[in-house]
C-alpha cells in the first residue's frame, strides 16, 4: 500500500521553492492563530481549501477524511466544557456550556483542521528531497535535515513491513479481533518485536548503502534539485505576510473576529 502523500503534478504550488512553502506554512499557522470566531476562522479554512484544490491535493484530504472530521468534531464537542463564556446555554452540575464557548469550540476545531490541511498541502506538493534541500539552504545543518527527511521517508517502508508482520502472525492464529485491553497489549508484542528488528536491520543496510555511495554528513555536496527563489516566490510570501499583517490589525486594532477575549 502506498501511504506516500506526494503527488507528482505540476501546479503553481509544486513549482514554488521549498523555502517559500516552509515559510508559507509557518505564516499560515500564524494566520490561523489570529481569530477565534468561527466565521472568521471558517473564511481562512475556505481559503486554504481553495489552495488545496489548485494544488490538486484533494485526494489526500479524502484519504485523511476521518482524521480531519474527528479533529473538528472532538474539539467542537470538548472545548465548550473547558472555556468559560457569559451567555449560558446549558449546565449540569459543574459542567457548563455557553454560547461563546460553543462558538469557540467550533473555531478551534476549524483551526486544528486548517493546521493539518496546510501541512497536507505542503507534503502533497513537496518532494522529500526538496524539503531537505530547502532546509539546507535555510541554514539547517545537513545531518539534521537529512535525518528529518529520512524519517519521513521510512514511514511508508515500515508501515509496509508492519502490514506483512501482522499477516504473518494472524496466519499463526494471532487473534486481533477480540479480547480486552490487557490481552490486546500482550498481542502487541508479537507484532512490535519483529518490526523493531526489521527497522534496525533495514536502517543498518541503508547506512551501508549510503556510505558506499559516498555519503558523509560533514562534507559539502551538490544539490541536483537546487532550490531557486523566483519572483513568484517573493510574491507569494509578500501576499501571505500582507494578509497576516492585516489580520493582526483586525484583531488587535479593531478587535474583530473574537468570541472569547483573552484567548488565542
Amino acid at each position, binding site marked *: *500500500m502506498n501511504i506516500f502523500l506526494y503527488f507528482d503534478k505540476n501546479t503553481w504550488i509544486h513549482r514554488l521553492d521549498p523555502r517559500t512553502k516552509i515559510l508559507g506554512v509557518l505564516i499560515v499557522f500564524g494566520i490561523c492563530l489570529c481569530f477565534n470566531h468561527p466565521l472568521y476562522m471558517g473564511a481562512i479554512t475556505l481559503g486554504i481549501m481553495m489552495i488545496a484544490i489548485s494544488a490538486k491535493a484533494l485526494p489526500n484530504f479524502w484519504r485523511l477524511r476521518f482524521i480531519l472530521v474527528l479533529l473538528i468534531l472532538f474539539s467542537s464537542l470538548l472545548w465548550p466544557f473547558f472555556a468559560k463564556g457569559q451567555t449560558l446555554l446549558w449546565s449540569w452540575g459543574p459542567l457548563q456550556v455557553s454560547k461563546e464557548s460553543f462558538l469557540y469550540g467550533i473555531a478551534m476545531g476549524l483551526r486544528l483542521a486548517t493546521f493539518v490541511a496546510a501541512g497536507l498541502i505542503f507534503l502533497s506538493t513537496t*518532494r522529500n528531497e526538496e524539503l531537505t534541500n530547502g532546509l539546507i539552504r535555510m541554514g539547517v545543518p545537513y545531518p539534521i535535515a537529512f535525518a528529518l527527511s529520512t524519517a519521513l521517508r521510512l514511514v511508508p517502508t515500515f508501515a509496509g513491513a508492519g502490514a506483512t508482520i501482522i499477516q504473518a502472525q494472524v496466519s499463526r*492464529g494471532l487473534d486481533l479481533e477480540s479480547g480486552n485491553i490487557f490481552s490486546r497489549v500482550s498481542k502487541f508484542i508479537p507484532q512490535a518485536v519483529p518490526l523493531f528488528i526489521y527497522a534496525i536491520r533495514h536502517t543498518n543496510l541503508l547506512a*551501508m548503502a549510503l556510505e558506499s555511495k*559516498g555519503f558523509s554528513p560533514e562534507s559539502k555536496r551538490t544539490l541536483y534539485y537546487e532550490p531557486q527563489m523566483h519572483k513568484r516566490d517573493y510574491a507569494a510570501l509578500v501576499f501571505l505576510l500582507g494578509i497576516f499583517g492585516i489580520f493582526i490589525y483586525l484583531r488587535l486594532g479593531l478587535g474583530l473576529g473574537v468570541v472569547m477575549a483573552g484567548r488565542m
Partner: protein
Amino acid sequence: MSIAISIEDLTFTYRESERPALQNIQGLIEDGTFIVVMGHGGAGKSSLCCTLNGLIPNFFRGKYQGRVLVKGEEVARHKVAEMSRIVGLVLQDFEAQLFSTNVELEMAFGPENHCLPRSEIERRIQRYLSFVGLEKMRQREPATLSGGQKQRLAIGSVLALEPKVLVMDEPTTDLDPQGREEVLSVAKSIREEGRLLLIVDHEPETAASADQVWLMREGRLIAKGSPAEILVEVSALESCGIKPPPMLELFNAMSWPGNPLTEEAAIAMIRKHNLTKRRELNLTSLSSDNGKGPSILEAEGLGYRYPVYHVEALRGIELRICEGEFIAILGQNGSGKTTLAKHFNGLLKPTSGRMLVRGRPTTNYSHRELARLVGYVFQNPDHQIFARTVQEEVGFSLKALGESPKTIEKRVAEALEVVGLQGYDQKAPFTLTRGERQRVAVASVLAAQPQVVILDEPTTGLDYRHQINMMEMLRRLNQHGHTVIIITHSMWVAAEYAERTILLKDGGILSDGPTRAVFADETRLAEGSLRPPSLVRLSNWLGTQALTVEQMVRELRGED
C-alpha cells in the same frame, strides 16, 4: 595488465564474534577481470565484499589483520565515502538501498555526495540510466518498479559514481528469473566496458562465464581458478554448499567423456560422441488425475482486486487441490502467486467468486479456524520471530489457539523434530542462522498441525545444502499426508520436488498439470517468462521423463 586488487593475508573477526569471518585470504585480481565468488551461507562472501570498499573495518568493527589494496590505496586507511570513488558496492537487498523519491534523484545521490557540478550529474544520469535500460523510468518512484528494475536502478546508482571496481553481493538472490536475466545482462555489459566486476552468486551458470571463480568455505578461500578448473570439482562445490552443474553430474554418473557446464555443451557432446538416442516424450503415461484424496482447497471463479489501486490481481481462477498433493506455484513477480496463496488461508477474501476450504467458503471461517487447517509460512522468517526461546516461538500458535500447556509441549517437540531442530528449544531464535530461523518459522506453523502447509519462497536465501534439507523435510511432511504448496522462483526446486505445477500469469492460470507435462511445454513457460532448469531442457531435448539427474541416469540405463 596491472593489478587492481591485492588482498594480503587478510583475517577479520567481527567484534561480537569469536570465530574469524575471514581467515588468511590471499588474492590478486587484475584490471578488467570478472570474478564470481561462491560459498555456503556464512562462508564470508559478504564480509569479503565489505573489505573491498572499507565497510570492514570502518563500518563493521573488529579485529583486522593483513592488508587490502585497491588501485594502490590501502582500503582500511580510507573512509568508506572516499573509497566510493574507486569501488562501488551493490547489496542483495534492493529495497533497503533505494530511498529517493524518484529514479533520477536516486541516480544523482552518489554524484551529489562527490560534489560534482550539476551538468556532470546530468550527463551521468543519462549515460547510466540508459546503460541499465531505465531511461524511460526517469520520473518514476522506485517503489513502483519491479524487482529486476529496482536492482538495475541500484546498480545504475552505483555506476553513476564511475567506480573502477564494481562489487555485487548476491544481486540476483531475491529476484525472479526474469529479473535475474535483466541483472545478469547488465553485468555482462559492465564487463564489456572493461571494469573489474566481482559478483557473489549461487548459480554455477553465472560462474561458467567468469574469468575466475573463487570458492569460500568457513571464512577461507579454498580454491580459485578458471571455471573449467573449479566447476568440475563436484565434491568441493558440494562442500561449499553449491549446487554442482547438473550436466556435469549427469556425465559423471553415466561415465560419459567430457565435462560440459551448460546444456548446449552437453547436447553438442552427446551428438558428437553419439552417447544416447533421442526419443519421443510420452506424456500420456503421466496420470492426469490429481485425485489423491478428498479435495481440500477449491477456487470457483475466484477474482481479487486490491482495494486501493483497483488492480485486478486475480481473475477467474478455477482450481481444485486435493489432500496429499505436493504443488509448486510458479510465475513472475506480480503474476498473482502470493495473492492466490493468501486466499487459501483466508488472509485475503475474494472480491468475486468463491474460495472453499473443505467445501466451506473462507468467508465463513474465523482466522483461528483456518489457521488450524491451512498453515502459511511467510518468505522472511524475521517477519514473525519475536520470542525469547525457540520453544515459545514454536508454541505461539498453539497458545493463541488455546491449547493446554501439556499439548503445546508435546506438539512443539514433534514440530522441532520434523524440521530437525531437536534440542534447540531453549535457544534464542535471533541467534540462529538464516536457515535455522526459516526452520523455526516452518515448525511454528507445523505445530498447529494444519492439513495444508503453504510456503512462500522456502528456499530463497538458503544455500544449496540448506535448500536440500528444507525440501527433503517438506517431502517427508507430504509423505505423512500433509498437502504442501510452495510458491517459488527456483525452477529446479519445482522440477525435483513438486508433483503438480501451477503456472500463473497476470492473475490467471497459464497452465496446470503434472510437473513433467508443464515443464515439457517450453513455449508455454516462456509465455510466463520462465524457462525450465537446464537438466529439464536436456530431458525435453532427449525426450526422457526424467526431472532429476538420478531419474535420468536410471532412465538412460533402461532400469525404468
